[in-house]
């Protein structure tokens, strides 16, 4: 029995040591030459996080006055949840990467410093920056955050399959009708009439719905997409919204489009594996798709499809760098120096080549590395052209909504219901608008 007592004792001692021994908070350092520390929260993992860390290292190596500590904070949603706690306990970071649709929340949190303040103080010439990117993050004529990781959706197509089906691979479909017609030709059926390869596969992703509204120059929310004043209701329950669902649903019902769920990772896999001839996806994954295909077929890219005669364009998506308030001036200035460094041509060229996100500054296109990269991936030119041909209107600037995350999920549910024959486009959108409108009302009551 003795060993059991000993074991018990050891375990108890271990526990006490474990609980007490690991203490010891941070000791305040009195070294006067210590550089100013800037805390930077970032949210995108995988290959993007490596590029983010590489750029931060580059900044830290480039000078001695400022040290940036980059901390990964989980997904965008996790990071925002963490920020909510940190604002209350005055432990907010200096700089934080927040996704596009978190903009309204960030502004309403009243815990941010618009970067415009430092752009004015520093007399930065914004002309070299991509205007479409700045437009998204400009609210009340103030640039609130610096665009960082930016992408738009494009249509990807398999050129070899186009040729096999007798379609012009150099002239991809542009309108909803043309895409539907091409998909019909590209669909392969077996002897019994069962579809073995659908012409197009689109993930049920709320972002695509937002984009397809913008290409029609239609609003997603009222008060001019929440840009003239805070949105009080949604606006997607409209003929334009119905047109999207009717088009999508029509192709699924014909069997020329496949519904394989909400994950774009799955549609990517289907496209790379030659399981479908067309897909819609972000420009950010162009590199992954081309490498994944590895020369098995030629990858083509095209503008987002739109109904005939539409005059809109695409909304940028991704994330931007926000400055949080409540820090001493010197630290705020240091944070701005870091943000400015990150948006410089050299860093942006590196960023674009390694992640596929758009460069924030147009000067990056003059960098030799980037030119070589574009020669290797000519498909990217389409993405740049699409961005530049997008007129800046309140529709293409994108909606500002405090409950955007929820709204996106509700839209995804609506699309699913339509594709699964549970509701007509009109019914699904009406129901979704009701849910999201109620959420907006609740949000507006608490945000004031």
């Amino acid at each position: 029995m003795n060993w059991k007592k000993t074991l018990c004792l050891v375990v108890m001692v271990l526990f006490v040591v474990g609980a007490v021994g690991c203490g010891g908070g941070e000791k305040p350092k009195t070294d006067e030459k210590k550089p100013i520390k800037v805390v930077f929260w970032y949210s995108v993992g995988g290959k993007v996080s490596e590029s983010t860390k590489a750029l931060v290292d580059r900044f830290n190596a480039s000078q001695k006055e400022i040290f940036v500590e980059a901390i990964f904070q989980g997904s965008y949603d996790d990071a925002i949840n963490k920020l909510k706690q940190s604002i209350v306990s005055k432990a907010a970071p200096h700089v934080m990467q927040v996704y596009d649709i978190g903009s309204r929340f960030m502004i309403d949190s009243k815990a941010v410093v618009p970067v415009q303040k430092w752009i004015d103080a520093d007399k930065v010439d914004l002309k070299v920056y991509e205007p479409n990117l700045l437009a998204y993050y400009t609210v009340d004529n103030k640039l609130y955050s610096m665009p960082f990781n930016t992408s738009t959706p494009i249509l990807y197509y398999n050129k070899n399959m186009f040729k096999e089906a007798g379609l012009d691979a150099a002239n991809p479909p542009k309108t909803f009708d043309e895409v539907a017609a091409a998909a019909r030709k590209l669909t392969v059926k077996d002897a019994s009439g069962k579809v073995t390869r659908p012409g197009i596969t689109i993930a049920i992703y709320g972002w695509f719905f937002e984009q397809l509204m913008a290409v029609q120059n239609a609003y997603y929310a009222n008060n001019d997409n929440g840009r003239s004043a805070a949105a009080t209701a949604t606006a997607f329950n409209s003929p334009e919204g119905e047109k999207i669902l009717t088009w999508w649903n029509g192709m699924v019902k014909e069997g020329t489009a496949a519904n394989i769920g909400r994950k774009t990772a799955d549609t990517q896999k289907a496209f790379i594996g030659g399981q479908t001839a067309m897909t819609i996806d972000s420009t950010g994954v162009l590199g992954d798709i081309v490498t994944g295909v590895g020369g098995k077929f030629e990858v083509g890219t095209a503008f987002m499809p739109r109904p005939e005669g539409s005059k809109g364009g695409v909304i940028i998506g991704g994330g931007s760098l926000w400055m949080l308030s409540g820090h001493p001036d010197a630290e705020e200035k240091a944070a701005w120096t870091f943000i400015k460094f990150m948006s410089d041509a050299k860093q942006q060229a590196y960023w674009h080549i390694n992640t596929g996100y758009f460069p924030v500054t147009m000067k990056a296109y003059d960098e030799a590395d980037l030119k070589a990269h574009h020669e290797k991936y000519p498909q990217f030119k389409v993405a740049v052209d699409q961005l530049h041909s997008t007129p800046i209107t309140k529709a293409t600037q994108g909606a500002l909504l405090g409950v955007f995350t929820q709204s996106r999920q509700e839209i995804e549910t609506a699309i699913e219901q339509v594709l699964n024959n549970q509701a007509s486009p009109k019914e699904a959108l009406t129901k979704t608008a009701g849910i999201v409108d109620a959420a907006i009302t609740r949000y507006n009551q608490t945000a004031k």
Partner: protein
Amino acid sequence: MRKLVTAGQYLILALASLILLFPVLYAVLVSVQSASESVSYPPVFLPSQINWQSYVKAMETAPIFRFIFNSFVVSAIVTVGQLITASLAAYAFSFLTFPGRNAIFYVFLSTMMIPWEVTIIPNYFTIRELNWLDTYQGLAVPFLASAFGTFLLRQAFMTLPKELYDAARIDGCGHFRFFLTMVLPLSRPALGTLAVYSFLMTYNQYLWPLLVTNKDTMRTVQIGLAMLQWDQAAAWNSIMAGVMLVSAPAALLLIAGQKQLVRGLTAGALKG
């Protein structure tokens, strides 16, 4: 004939285990595939060559080994803490008689109804006030006691015959000695179950470690796995490599502990 039956049984068992293990097996295979193999169609099972690059990539993206160490430390503290607090509380609820015992026990149980998410914010403020952010105690202390563990052990202790207790008391055995030398050894299966359960629960935590830590050196494995993911595309081979690295130590520990668990079960059954 007998041999044939045994062979048949083994064949069926082998097939069943293959089905059960298939997800794990596939994850192992994907983790050594090249990037293009992991996205090709039809899916590739056997990689053309073993590709360790994904493991290197996973370790470059996230400091996995440090995270595994941290998770082990925190999970060990929580496991030991829960065993101590839950067994002592369970002993009180099953062997001591005091007024309001059942009422207090039900209050104890009712805390199981409070979702953990509700207590996150107050817990966070407490930990911050104590200056325990970025420390092991900040990660572990909120989980040192659990109503579930107390309930589990109380039920186990209740199955011990009352006569045992009476006999021990008559022979002059005190509460603490009875607890240490009789109750605990006889309840090893239940203690083992609670240990495994609390270890895995802590090992799999995500939100709490994310909230109370801000340094790579203090973070735990689930955050490491999140670091390997990008919302727009998935590099399945390096994600799976990360999953393998993270789950291997926990799985090994379980395999090692399983023998002990089974032995405890049979020992209890024979002696009890």
